[in-house]
Structures are given as structure tokens and as C-alpha cells.
């Protein structure tokens, strides 16, 4: 196994620098070529390394590459090194692959934008940061990538910064992320204090020895890391930035909030599986929060009319599934769902972008409808994605979601309650997703008349990535066919060496295959029920939604206003903080700091004022001063 790992990172970084510095002078095609080319080369090289990795026997699929010694301070040594194992190989493929498709799509979508070069340079920087994150061999390199994606999300969400809501959204994303990062850093410190190193491989190896299973140290450590994950991956309580992040360009939403950045938290948890498996309490909390977030976001998505908001809450909900998986120890299932989710969610976002492109940036679904025949490619690809996310058998989402649902019950950390929440959420998912499809593409056209004349399908540079992702959304699941269906679960076995596992004794009873079949059938039925209800409400009897809203007015209002969480945070956190900042500004900044600087200036001035009287201009005075000095010096020598 050889081949420089850093090449994967070098090209996006180079793309960022070139487009960032010279992009304004290039024409649009050149900028796109540089950016897409960079990610494309990255993808090709990732594929090459992936196949080289597979060629090795499963036990030794690890490749470490050290670039240089980075920090060497006392006992703390951190090198800038990269780590390739099944997990990171899968991640780099996904990041560069989906990223590549999104870059191509952006060429079409952002074609009329003025800050073309800036967009692509940030996009490349983001890809670089994400690759750095997943390839990091120690937590410090990971953290660099972690912060990098946070920064890029700020830059890209607030891309149209002249719009107040966009710049606010960017700030919100960054600040909420920062709060999560604070917890993450504390976790890092704790890890360093315990292990003396931040190298992931060493931590994984030493964890069972140094940490008592279920002990308070490891629990706090993992909880702190999880706080960081909730920030990045938009779980309760730090998810609030993601819906607002829809202010950014739609390809940005596709890349950052569907495929890559938000998955950083899940990746981090999977990476640190050794630690998490030693902290059952944290795992329980993670699973609970994951499940709760999933159903919470799904309920909100039912009421939203902005097509991107629905997808945003859908992302939060699906991320909840992934955390649920990690929380019950099924890290492989979580990563599998991460991969399939990347495919269909990116497709959904890009499809929404295509719809918006056709409708001259109309985002409100109430003004859509009847687009099925007019933008067919968009329609069919989005339909495929929706089927995938709803967990309809045969599509990728079915396999990954089903595995998570089964593990949420069957795993030693699993619980029937978690399964119930998961299944209900699956039903809700199908419901709101098909609501989206029906409202957007079916029925009578509610499109505003001046827009209706210009409806056109997107150019092929935008539709080809859609088609590619649609194909992946179908076949992507077949690497993880469970044993139940006579599959070999290739992806599960592939990822297995990367995670820690339950000890044999923990896997108590072997749940029968019958139970597994039962649960699978129940989840499929519930998904189909969701689709049926959506059909009933939005095609057969379109008056129903309005009637429901009126009848359950209180519930509807709460859901429509996102449970008033933002307002709650604003009142309890933001307001006191602003007040405190004001006080600090008035007292500390103005009086003390400015005051002391001004004081020094004043003293200097005053000294000058006093001393100037010595410069009288009279020679005789100067001579007197001179003599004075002589007398004093001589006197000193006399009286010494």
C-alpha cells in the first residue's frame, strides 16, 4: 500500500488558492474547470487508493502517512499525519465523489452569479477541509478540518452577504457551531490528559486499558465530544442553524448540509467508537437524542411550505437516525445510512434547485404544482430520491434505514422504545417527503402566471449530476443487503475493522429471524401508509390539510413555528448575553482599556508640558544646569 495520501488534499487546496487569488481574472469556464477538475482528480485518486486498500487482506487495511512533525512541546507531540482505513476510505470516496457532482451542477446553477470565482474557491476550500477532517490521523488534524468546514459553512451560507438574512444565517451557523466546538475542545483536553496523546490509533488501542468501562471519566469525555457533534450535525439542542442555512445557494445546501459537513459529527463518533463503547451512559444519551431529534424534526417538516426548509428538517431528522445507530453501537449501520443519505439528500437538494431554477427562484410550494410534465428529468430523479428516503424496498434508503431500525431494537444497547420512535419517524418521513413531491409536481398548477411562461428544464450540466445521483440512490444500497435477505452485507463487513464492537457476552439473546422479518414488514407498511396519507391529503382531497390545520390549530401553530425554539433561545441565551456584552463594553472596554491607554498618552503629554520649561533658550540657564550636574556628580564621589 503506497501512494501519497496528501495528493487527495492537495488538489482542492490548490483549486481554492488559484480560484481565490486569480479567479476574478479568469472567465467562468476556466474557474469551473479548475474547481471541478481539482475535486475530480481528488476523486479519481481516492478511488485508486480505495482499490489499493481493498487489495490488502482485511486485517491489515491500515495506511498511515506522516507529512511532518507539527507540534512538539514538552510531552505533547502531534504530527500532521493521515490515516487511511476502511472508514476513511469510504468517506473520501463519498466526499470527493458527491462533491464532484455538486461542483458540476454548480457550474449551471451559479452561472449568472457575479461572485463566481469566490463561490468555487470556497467550495474547494470546503472540500479540502472535509477531506482533512476524515483523513486526520490524530484529533488535532481532525479538529483543523472540523474548524475549516465550520468556517466554510459560514462563508458559503452567507455567500450573498449583502442580504441581511443571509449574513445573519451565516453568523448563526458559525456561532452555534462554535458552542459545539467548545465542548469538543474540552473533550480533546480531557483525552489528552488521560492518554497523553491525540493520535486516534493509539487512543483506540489504549482505551480499554486506561479507562474504566462506564466510568465517569470516559462518560464525560464522550459527552463533551458529542456536544461538538450536536453542533456540527445539527442535533438537539444545537440544530437551530441548519434551517436558517438554507439562505445559501442550493448547491451549498446540497454539499454541506446533505452530503458532507453535517456528517462530520457522525464520522467523529464512529472514529471514536472505542471510547463510546466504554461509556454506555453516553451511548444511551446519544441514541435518545438521535431518536428525539429525528421525530422532532419530522413533525416540523410536515408543516413547512418552503421546499428547502422541508429538506433541511428532513436532513436533521435523518441525522438523528445516524446518531441513533451510533448510540446503539451499530456504527456500521450509521455510516451506511450516511452514505445512502448523501446520495439521495444531495439529489433532493439539487432537484429542488432545479425546480427553483425552472420557476425563477420560487421556493414556496404553495405556488408550485403540475410540474410533472414540464420538468420531467427533475421530476423523475426527485421521485427516485423520495422513494429512497422513504425507505421503500428496492431503493438504497430501505436497506440502510432498515438496518438502523433493527439495530435500535436488537443491539445490546437497543430498546423497543427507540424502535417505535424510529418507525413512527419513518412514517412521517414518507408523509412529508411525498407531500413535497405531490405539492410540487402534481395537481393543478398554482404557479404565478408571470413565472409560468418561463418554465424550462435545467441544462444538462445540471441534470446529469441528478441522474448520476439517482442511479446511486437506487444501487447504493445493494452493498449492504442484510443476511436476512440472503445478502452478504458487504459494506458492514468492509467497515467492521474500523469500529469497536460489543464483547461476546454483551450480545445476549439472539433475536430470531422471525422478529427481524416482522419488524421489517412493519416498517415497510408504515412507510407505505405515509405515502398513502400524503396521496389522500394532497392529491385526492386537497382541502384536507387546511381542514386539519384548522381542527388542530394549537398543535399546528406550534409545529409551524418550529416549537418556538429559536424564540426560546433568543430569550434565554441571546438576550442576556447581549446585555452582558453591552455592560462589558461600557465598563471594561471604554473605561478601563481605553482609559488606561488615554491615561498613558495624557501622562506623556503632561510630562512634556512640564519639561518644556527647561528649554528657555538662554545659554546661561543651560550652563547653570550644566554646573548643577557637575556639582552633583562630584558630590556623589565625595560622599561615597
Amino acid at each position: 500500500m503506497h501512494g501519497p495520501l496528501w495528493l487527495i488534499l492537495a488538489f482542492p487546496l490548490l483549486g481554492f488558492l488559484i480560484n481565490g487569488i486569480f479567479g476574478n481574472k479568469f472567465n467562468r469556464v476556466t474557474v469551473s474547470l479548475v474547481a471541478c477538475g481539482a475535486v475530480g482528480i481528488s476523486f479519481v485518486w481516492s478511488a485508486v487508493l480505495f482499490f489499493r486498500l481493498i487489495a490488502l487482506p482485511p486485517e491489515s487495511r491500515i495506511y498511515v502517512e506522516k507529512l511532518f512533525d507539527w507540534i512538539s512541546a514538552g510531552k505533547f507531540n502531534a504530527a500532521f499525519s493521515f490515516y487511511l482505513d476502511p472508514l476513511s476510505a469510504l468517506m473520501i470516496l463519498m466526499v470527493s465523489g458527491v462533491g464532484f457532482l455538486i461542483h458540476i451542477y454548480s457550474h449551471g446553477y451559479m452561472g449568472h452569479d457575479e461572485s463566481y470565482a469566490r463561490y468555487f474557491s470556497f467550495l474547494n476550500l470546503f472540500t479540502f477541509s472535509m477531506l482533512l477532517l476524515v483523513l486526520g490521523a490524530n484529533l488535532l488534524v481532525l479538529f483543523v478540518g472540523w474548524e475549516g468546514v465550520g468556517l466554510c459553512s459560514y462563508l458559503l451560507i452567507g455567500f450573498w452577504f449583502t442580504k441581511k438574512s443571509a449574513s445573519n444565517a451565516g453568523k448563526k451557523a458559525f456561532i452555534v457551531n462554535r458552542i459545539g466546538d467548545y465542548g469538543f475542545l474540552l473533550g480533546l483536553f480531557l483525552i489528552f490528559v488521560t492518554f497523553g496523546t491525540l493520535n486516534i490509533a493509539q487512543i483506540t488501542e489504549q482505551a480499554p486499558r486506561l479507562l474504566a468501562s462506564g466510568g465517569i471519566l470516559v462518560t464525560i469525555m464522550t459527552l463533551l465530544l458529542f456536544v461538538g457533534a450536536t453542533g456540527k450535525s445539527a442535533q438537539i439542542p444545537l440544530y437551530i442553524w441548519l434551517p436558517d442555512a438554507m439562505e445559501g445557494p442550493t448547491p451549498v445546501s446540497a454539499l454541506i448540509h446533505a452530503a458532507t459537513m453535517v456528517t462530520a459529527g457522525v464520522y467523529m463518533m464512529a472514529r471514536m467508537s472505542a471510547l463510546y463503547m466504554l461509556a454506555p451512559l453516553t451511548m444511551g444519551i446519544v441514541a435518545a437524542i438521535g431518536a428525539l431529534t429525528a421525530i422532532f424534526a419530522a413533525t416540523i417538516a410536515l408543516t413547512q411550505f418552503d421546499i428547502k426548509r422541508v429538506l433541511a428538517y428532513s436532513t436533521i431528522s435523518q441525522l438523528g437516525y445516524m446518531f441513533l445507530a451510533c448510540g446503539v453501537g451499530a456504527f456500521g449501520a450509521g455510516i451506511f445510512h450516511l452514505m445512502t443519505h448523501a446520495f439521495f439528500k444531495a439529489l433532493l437538494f439539487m432537484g429542488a434547485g432545479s425546480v427553483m431554477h425552472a420557476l425563477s427562484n420560487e421556493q414556496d410550494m404553495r405556488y408550485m404544482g403540475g410540474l410533472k410534465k414540464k420538468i420531467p428529468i427533475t421530476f423523475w430523479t426527485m421521485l427516485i430520491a423520495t422513494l429512497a428516503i422513504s425507505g421503500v424496498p428496492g431503493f438504497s434508503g430501505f436497506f440502510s434505514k432498515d438496518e438502523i431500525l433493527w439495530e435500535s431494537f436488537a443491539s445490546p444497547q437497543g430498546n423497543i422504545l427507540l424502535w417505535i420512535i424510529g418507525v413512527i419517524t419513518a412514517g412521517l418521513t414518507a408523509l412529508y417527503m411525498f407531500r413535497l413531491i405531490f405539492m410540487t409536481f402534481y395537481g393543478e398548477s398554482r404557479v404565478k402566471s408571470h413565472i409560468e411562461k418561463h418554465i424550462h428544464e435545467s441544462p444538462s450540466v445540471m441534470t446529469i449530476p441528478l441522474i448520476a445521483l439517482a442511479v446511486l440512490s437506487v444501487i447504493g444500497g445493494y452493498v449492504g443487503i442484510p443476511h436476512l435477505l440472503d445478502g452478504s452485507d458487504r459494506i458492514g463487513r468492509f467497515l467492521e475493522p474500523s469500529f469497536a464492537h460489543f464483547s461476546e457476552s454483551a450480545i445476549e439473546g439472539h433475536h430470531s429471524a422471525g422478529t427481524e422479518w416482522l419488524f421489517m414488514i412493519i416498517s415497510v407498511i408504515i412507510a407505505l401508509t405515509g405515502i398513502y396519507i400524503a396521496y389522500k391529503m394532497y392529491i385526492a382531497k386537497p382541502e384536507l390539510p387546511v381542514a386539519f390545520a384548522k381542527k388542530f390549530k394549537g398543535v399546528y401553530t406550534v409545529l409551524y413555528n418550529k416549537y418556538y425554539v429559536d424564540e426560546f433561545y433568543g430569550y434565554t441565551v441571546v438576550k442576556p448575553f447581549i446585555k452582558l456584552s453591552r455592560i462589558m463594553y461600557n465598563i471594561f472596554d471604554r473605561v478601563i482599556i481605553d482609559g488606561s491607554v488615554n491615561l498613558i498618552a495624557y501622562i506623556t503629554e503632561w510630562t512634556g508640558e512640564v519639561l518644556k520649561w527647561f528649554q528657555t533658550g538662554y545659554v546661561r540657564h543651560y550652563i547653570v544646569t550644566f554646573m548643577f550636574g557637575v556639582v552633583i556628580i562630584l558630590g556623589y564621589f565625595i560622599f561615597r
Partner: protein
Amino acid sequence: MQLAIFIIFAILCIFGSILVITLRSAVSSAIALVFVMCVIAGLFALVGALFVAALQVIVYAGAVMVLFLFIIMLLNLKEELISEDDKKFTRFLGIVLGTAFLFELAFFVRTALMRGSEALYEPVPKTLSSIAVISSELFTKFLFPFELTSVLLLIAIVGAILLAKKKNEK
């Protein structure tokens, strides 16, 4: 014997210098200074430094002071008026400082000669005439400063002429 002569000379010297700094008329001060220089030349002769004494009279009293007198008369200096002197404090301070300085010097001299002042007076050996010795030193040990001094005098001459020349304003 020597001591008596010395004391007379010393008193004359001090008296003369006080006259220099206190007389109102500039010419009178200059004359007093000439007097002081001659007395000092006498002092030099008293201890046997004949060449230096001659030098003092010829160069210092004879040339430099004449120059001073020329300039005083050229500038037509009036008598210095006391009345509008508003820097009495400076004067007072000056006298105080000068006296303090003097006492400090005296202190140094006292401590330096604690062993008691040795008999100083010795007739200069006839074999060692002062001019011969000085000149031999000048042209061997102090050759370089000697030559430099001649350059310095040249510079002074040229400088003085240039500075005092009336500019032709046409």
C-alpha cells in the same frame, strides 16, 4: 621665600579675576584679564617653567588679548546695564554653584594630598633647560599633535576670515 612670593602673586591673580568678571566696562575687563595673565606668567616663572611663562606673555597676553581688545573696540560695546537684569536668581544660583564647585575641588585636593604636601620647590636643573626639553618632546613624542595643531591654526584663520567677511550685497 617662595611661599611669600607665591602668596602675593596668588592674591593679585584672584583680585584680577574678580575684576574681570565684575567690571562693567568691557575694555576694563580686558585690561584686567591681561593683568591676570601676566601674573600667571609670573607664577610659571616662579616654579621654573620659563618657556611656558614666555609663551603665556607673548601669545596669550600679547596676541589673544589684543585681539579681544580690537573686537571690543570694533563692536563699540556700551556699558552693560544692570538695572534691566531680571535674572537675579540665575546670578545667585551661579554664585552658589560656583562656590560649591570650589569647595568640592578643595575637598579633592585635601584628600589627595593627605600625606602632606611635599616640598615642591626645586630649582630646575641647569642641565635641563626648559626650552630644550620641551622642544625635544614636541618633535618626538608629541609630533602628531604638533602637526595637527598647525592644521588647526590654519583652519581657525580661514574660518575667522570667512565668518567675519562682509557679504557683498549687490
